């Protein structure tokens, strides 16, 4: 049933190339569930990108929407606070911690990720390019900029606000 809902929500028609996803976007209903799509995100104490956070969430975490304020959702779950809509997708979807579409990924995740360039493709590409050292990007992607720590950097440097 859940899979049918996802597929139905994914399968829409768009009138012409000029149509954009944002035209189709509608805020989630209060009480509905959103799933974290990015690998990690901060749930903020206030609806802004830089500032104090309530805590962190990871790809696949599911949160319940309690309030919608523009592009920000006040959510409750493992962590409660505000999360931007760019970090989540609507609905409760089982997602693996690393963007899926490869072996072991759920059908829903394969649907979401789409075909094209996937972990299977990367693996085959890497097989034919042993000269490339992927250990660098794999290590570096574990580092994340802490947007909560940026608040002091912004304040100290007199940044933010209109010129």
């Amino acid at each position: 049933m859940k899979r049918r809902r996802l597929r139905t929500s994914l399968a829409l028609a768009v009138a012409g190339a000029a149509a954009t996803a944002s035209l189709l976007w509608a805020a989630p209903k209060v009480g509905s569930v959103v799933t974290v799509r990015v690998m990690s995100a901060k749930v903020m104490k206030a609806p802004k990108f830089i500032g104090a956070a309530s805590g962190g969430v990871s790809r696949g975490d599911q949160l319940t929407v309690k309030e919608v304020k523009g592009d920000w959702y006040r959510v409750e779950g493992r962590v409660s606070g505000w999360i931007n809509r760019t970090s989540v997708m609507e609905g409760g979807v089982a997602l693996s911690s690393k963007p899926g579409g490869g072996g072991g990924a759920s059908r829903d995740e394969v649907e979401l990720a789409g075909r094209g360039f996937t972990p299977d493709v990367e693996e085959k590409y890497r097989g034919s390019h042993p000269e490339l050292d992927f250990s660098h990007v794999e290590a570096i992607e574990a580092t994340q900029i802490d947007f909560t720590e940026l608040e002091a950097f912004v304040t100290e440097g007199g940044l933010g606000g209109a010129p």
Partner: protein
Amino acid sequence: MRRGRIVAVALAAALGGLSCKVNLTPEGIMQTVDAIKDARKDLTPENEYWTGRSVATNLLARHDYQYRDADALRAGRLEGLTAYVSAVGGVLAASALETRRDGDRPAPIGGWHFLVVESDTINAFAAPGGWVFVTTAAVEAAKTEDELAAVIAHEIAHVARGHALGSIKKGRWAGVAKTALDTSVELDEQALGDLTKVFEGAMDDMIDGILVKGYSKDTEYEADKVGLAIMAHAGYDPQAFVRYLKTLDAKQHTGSGGFSATHPKASERIQKVEGQAKTLGTRKIPEIRVARFRAAVSGDD
């Protein structure tokens, strides 16, 4: 499941003949059932993530994997000049999110990563999926944090506008069977081979655009325009963008390669952005911003 697809096809026929699967996230990327027509629009954020890793690896390989604070980064820590550049980049990435437009990709699934590549050539470049690289020479050519922000904002704009993905030649997809892109069909070896062949070609196209031949002039002008808006919104002095271009203009007459090979003449870029910068006004740069820039570049932070 089938009902959803039938509805989609019927609607597409009624509305203009374009059948798409659409995910409803803000960067909502349309992946056509038939084929990928334009990677900038059609690849999902997950596709972009996997693409970005390989492009970034290729770009690092071309710089012999020499970048600042490598040991700390490989241990999962941001330190030294990399931590400072990442802080500036983080502020700009937040600004890119706040100023995003339809179709922008300012929220990479794997987050943003800012690296300082060891090179005597002034250059900065970016890979899909939020990978931004600034050479040591490009950092040293900046006189203030605001000028460094101009360089990074230009690169964030390339990622947010999907310029590298857009440089993948559309013909690359020609040999791929429709079923290879249909997620309801099991991927077989033939389809995987076809997709990997496209991936190989796409790498060549993107690296050409990013590091070898450069993008079109209009693409660079767009990155300047969007980048300037991003840095101004973050609170940096818009005039710093023009000042850095003037530095590049002075150096462009004496150097080759790097930004000279992949960007329009700095004098032409100045002409294009001067009006926008004037409209955005001037913002006083506090001494602390100058001091912390000097400390970070000299390694005294």
